[in-house]
């Protein structure tokens, strides 16, 4: 089963979930091994096979719902796979999301003790390990308080500290580092680097291309329950971006090419201020609302704005221009925009079109010169106005 240096092998892992109007459907399936007529089975993981070698750091990327967390839960033995098997000849320490196996009524210290017990730390070493967890997590007096009183960042601190200090052969980190303050993230990343140097294996789930490319020797990209890439980290990050943009362009609501709507856009930066001008053409008259969201490459909305406009028949012959002033406070990196166009009819707002990912830009590049592109480029919008062209 294991080749040289392999510590974990997953073979043809599949996982199905039952979609049922009530949990009785699951009861029926579990008892009689067949589903009721009204219930549906969805496959969230399909034929996943991979292995992890000793000393390797494997990154797992994929959009939300791709099956990453389900896969990790199966690897950790928390949920059983529907088909296939995971075989490991190592101890695994998991920090599965920020809740990470913590009992909310227990204090941080009590949860750390449970975590040590769960990972078979000898009784005479438990206090030392808990002391290390206490020091690293920097929770101070909160360590003696119930975990339900913690913020998500504090849970992440405890979660990472617990998984890092129980001396497992393979440490699984599932988006734990996506919350918490920057200083603690840096501390965690330093710790990961130190442990990597000492030969520690990691399985890291993250939406951050920077983190994955910097810390992982190999990347698996999951899409719709299947592995679409398993190999080079940079190639994996590229694949992840491709998968993310595909998702945006395959949005279930009707959409059209941005060229059909957005005509021109111009953005200029001046110190902490930025100004955006763009124009678009409407196909028919009416009371419209144009909402635009600025997102980073992880798909997180940074900010957004919307503008209401009454379009008359005479406006259809020429592009309508909009101008926005906003404060320029984005850090370097890739950003893109989603646009949603709504129309008001009978006091109700209904969606006309979605313009997903209609423009992307690199802030570091955009900052250096005035950008004039086919479509919009914007940041944090403080006000919006229609201008005449």
């Amino acid at each position, binding site marked *: 089963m294991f080749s040289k240096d392999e510590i974990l092998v997953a073979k043809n892992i599949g996982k199905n*979930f*039952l979609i049922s109007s*009530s*949990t*009785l459907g*699951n*009861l029926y*399936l*579990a*008892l009689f091994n067949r589903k009721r007529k009204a219930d549906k089975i969805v496959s969230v993981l399909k034929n996943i096979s991979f292995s992890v070698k000793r000393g390797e750091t494997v990154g797992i990327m994929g959009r939300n719902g791709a099956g990453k967390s389900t896969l990790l*839960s199966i690897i*950790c*033995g*928390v*949920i*059983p796979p529907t088909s296939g098997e995971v075989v490991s000849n190592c101890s695994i320490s*998991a920090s*599965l*999301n920020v*809740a*990470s*196996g*913590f*009992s*909310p*009524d*227990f*204090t941080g210290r*009590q949860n750390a*003790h*449970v975590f040590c*017990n*769960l990972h078979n730390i000898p009784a005479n070493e438990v206090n030392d390990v808990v002391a290390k967890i206490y020091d690293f997590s920097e929770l101070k007096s909160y360590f003696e308080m*119930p975990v339900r009183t913690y913020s998500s960042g504090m849970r992440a601190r405890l979660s990472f500290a617990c998984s890092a200090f129980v001396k497992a052969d393979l440490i699984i980190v599932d988006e734990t580092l996506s919350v918490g303050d920057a200083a603690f993230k840096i501390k965690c990343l330093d710790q990961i680097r130190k442990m990597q140097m000492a030969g520690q294996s990691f399985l890291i789930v993250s939406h951050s291309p920077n983190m994955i490319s910097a810390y992982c020797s190999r990347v698996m990209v999951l899409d719709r329950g299947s592995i679409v890439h398993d190999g080079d980290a940079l190639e994996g990050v590229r694949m992840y971006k491709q998968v993310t943009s595909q998702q945006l362009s395959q949005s279930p609501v009707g959409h059209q090419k941005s060229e059909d709507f957005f005509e021109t856009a111009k953005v200029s930066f001046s110190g902490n201020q930025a100004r955006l001008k763009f124009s678009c053409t409407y196909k028919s008259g009416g009371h419209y609302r144009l909402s635009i969201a600025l997102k980073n490459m992880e798909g997180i909305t940074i900010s957004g704005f919307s503008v209401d406009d009454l379009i008359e028949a005479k406006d259809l012959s020429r592009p309508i221009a909009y101008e926005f002033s906003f404060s320029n406070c984005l850090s370097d990196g890739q950003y893109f925009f989603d646009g949603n166009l709504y129309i008001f009819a009978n006091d109700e707002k209904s969606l006309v079109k979605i313009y997903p990912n209609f423009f992307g830009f690199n802030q570091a590049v955009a900052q250096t010169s005035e950008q004039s592109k086919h479509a919009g480029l914007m940041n944090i919008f403080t006000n919006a106005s229609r201008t005449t062209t």
Partner: protein
Amino acid sequence: MLFTRESFKFGYYLAKRDISSTYSRSLFGMSWLFVSPLVALAIYGFVYGRVLRVGWSDPSTGEALGFILPFFCGFAPYMLFSEALANSTNALLSKRGLITTSKIPLISFIASTLLRTGFSAILQLCVLLSLSLFYQRFYYYTLPGFLLGFLTLFIFITPISIIFAILAPFVADLKDTTRVIVRFAFYLTPIAYPLSLVSETFQKILFLNPLTSLVELFRFPIYSNPFVFQTWMLSFLVICLLLWAVAAFLFSKLSPAVTDVL
């Protein structure tokens, strides 16, 4: 093998932490464990013993036993049964976060509720022994008799706890159903009234309820001659065996699917 050493290890740990975290925030702390049954005893003692003049007599000698001691002999197992049932329906649901993100065996959570009930059982035993001494019904077989009673009680409530705990994530109505069962069980079991008060036909019906057997078993240690074989002991044993078979079947079938519904 349902329970392993490992599952009891975590169960013990969880139970210990649960008890300490529950009572550390309480003003009167663990004294509630004594206060609650004693308050109930006082209320029932007044209503049934004083007002309604309900009482027991020794089956061998016919000597009057009063109300308090025989009542508590029935009330103690009933309280433990209702506690185990209520805790079991919550055993997996209340630890949802822990179950879906850690590898703690499911049976540990059930073991934890049983151990908590076990902790209450020790306190009940202390109250029972104190009352036996106070009412001068303490014989050489009283302590082993009560211990046998508690052992039998756990043989009975363990499979019930497993069944309720494993079904609760799948059957949303179970929590409310449990409340109804517990309420009915109090009146359909001769806890606050002696069996002799009901007709022979109704006595047979009462023995269909396994709690009746348990309650009667708990009263033997305070009788002058406890060594009497009763046919209901055999039927109780059969019920226990059936419960264990059902519990083992349901646990093996449903435990792999629990994380899917939590």
